[in-house]
Each structure stands twice: as C-alpha cells, then as structure tokens.
C-alpha cells in the first residue's frame, strides 16, 4: 500500500467521521467545528489529487470565511445545547431511513458503472495549478468570472438590505 493510498483512506475516514459528528452533535458550536474538520479533510483530498489552487481556496473561503460567519451568527444568537430544539424521535428515524435509502440506491446504481476501471490520477498533472487555472479562467471563462462579481455585489446588497433593522 503506497503512502498516497494510506493518506486517501485516512482522509476519507476523517471526512466521513467528522461529517457524521456534524449531524449528530447537540451543540451547534461543535457542529461548526466538526464541519471545519470535514473541510480540512476534503482539502487534503484536493492536495492528494494535486488540485492545489482548489485546496487553498477551500481552506480560505470555506474554513476561513464561511465557517467564521456561521460561528459569528451562532454566537450572536447565543445558541447552545439548552436552546437546541428537541428532536422528534420518529422524525429522526424517518430521516435516517430516507438518507440510508438514498445512499443504498445511489451505490446500487453506480457500483457496476463502466467507469469502474478508470483511475483518478494522484499527485500528478498540472491542471490544478494556479497558473493553468488562472489562464483558463481569464481567457475562456472570463464572462462567467465577471458575472460572478455582479452576483457578489447583489448578494452584498441583499444581505445588507435583509439584515437592516426596519
């Protein structure tokens, strides 16, 4: 077993375990912390796939900006274990069964796919580097890139407008 295969399994187990902890922890703060762990594990997967730009962006944008925003809102509302709404037992059971059914159907549908013999290249390739991605982003995808700036502007205006006290 090569070192990258060992890393793949360790990161996969870490991602799945912390994702489960996000769903099961009672305290919302703990959920946020576990979600940050999940994002770091997924960033590790990106590094393993040599998608270095996406790994760094994932840490900066998700673990850095979005999760701080979540933590900020949770602390602003002073949510903790006591204020957590009581969970209905039947609702939990039904949700677990439906999620498990979705997992089962997707796995059963995709386990004999033609792609099974294909390999995902680890630790090689230059597509994930900032230089290649940047050149492609500012030549072929320049219009979607500029449109996303308009999206950000409207999101900022929307957030301020909604959050304003009237």
């Amino acid at each position, binding site marked *: 077993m090569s070192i990258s295969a060992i890393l793949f399994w360790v990161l996969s187990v870490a991602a799945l375990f912390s994702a489960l902890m996000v*769903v099961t922890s009672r305290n919302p703060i703990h959920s946020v912390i576990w979600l940050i762990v999940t994002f770091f594990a997924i960033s590790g997967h990106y590094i393993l796939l040599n998608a270095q730009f996406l790994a760094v962006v994932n840490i900066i944008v998700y673990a850095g900006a979005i999760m701080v925003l979540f933590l900020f809102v949770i602390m602003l509302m002073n949510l903790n274990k006591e204020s957590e709404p009581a969970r209905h037992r039947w609702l939990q059971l039904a*949700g677990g069964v439906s*999620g498990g059914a979705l*997992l089962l159907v997707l796995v059963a549908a995709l386990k004999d796919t033609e792609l099974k013999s294909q390999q995902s290249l680890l630790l090689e390739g230059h597509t994930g580097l900032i230089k290649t991605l940047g050149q492609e982003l500012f030549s072929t995808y320049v219009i979607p890139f500029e449109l996303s700036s308009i999206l950000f502007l409207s999101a900022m205006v929307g957030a301020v407008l909604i959050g304003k006290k009237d």
Partner: protein
Amino acid sequence: MPINYYLFLAIALFSIGVVGVLTRRNAIIIFMCIELMLNAVNLLLVAFSKMHYNQAAAAAIPIANPGIDGQLFVFFIMVVAAAEVSVGLAIIVMLYRNIHSVDINFLNRLKH
C-alpha cells in the same frame, strides 16, 4: 485511486448531508448540511477532472488542459456558495429577530 472510491465517498458525504437536513430542526445546522452536500459534489468534480486528465494522457489526446473545466466549475460553485451563505445567514438573523428562535417548526406561518 479508482474513480469509484471517490464516487462512493462523495455519495456517503452527500447522504450524511441529506440525513442532516431531514433530521435537524435548527435552521443554521440545516444550512451547514447543505454546505456539506455542496462539498461532496465538489470533491467528486475534482476526482472526475483528474480522471479525464488520466484518460487523455493515456490515449495521448492533444488537448491543452484535459479536465480543467471540472476544477473551474468547482471554483464557481464555491463562489456561488459564498454568496448564498451571506444572504441565507442574513435571512436567518432576520427570522431570529422576529420569532426569537431558529427552530424551523415555528416557521409555518405560510401553512395557515
């Protein structure tokens, strides 16, 4: 790594996100589970991107950057997710200001 390992990992992460959305009643946690589902899809897109790179390298297809579209797609998904989170959290803060709770079971005024 075989592509179906990544496929099953992404499916498992996505299903955990679905279970979280269905079982939790805190609006913020539901929002976080949606982020988890987005990240599962992102991981799968990157894995497919590297699969295309591998295919093109094996078959010696002369494309400049095989599989780069998938990674740019992930970049745009992150952009849209960041915009979505800012607006969504603003909506949740406003809801909390009005009903003093983030329990989604209190948000049933449209039903009556």
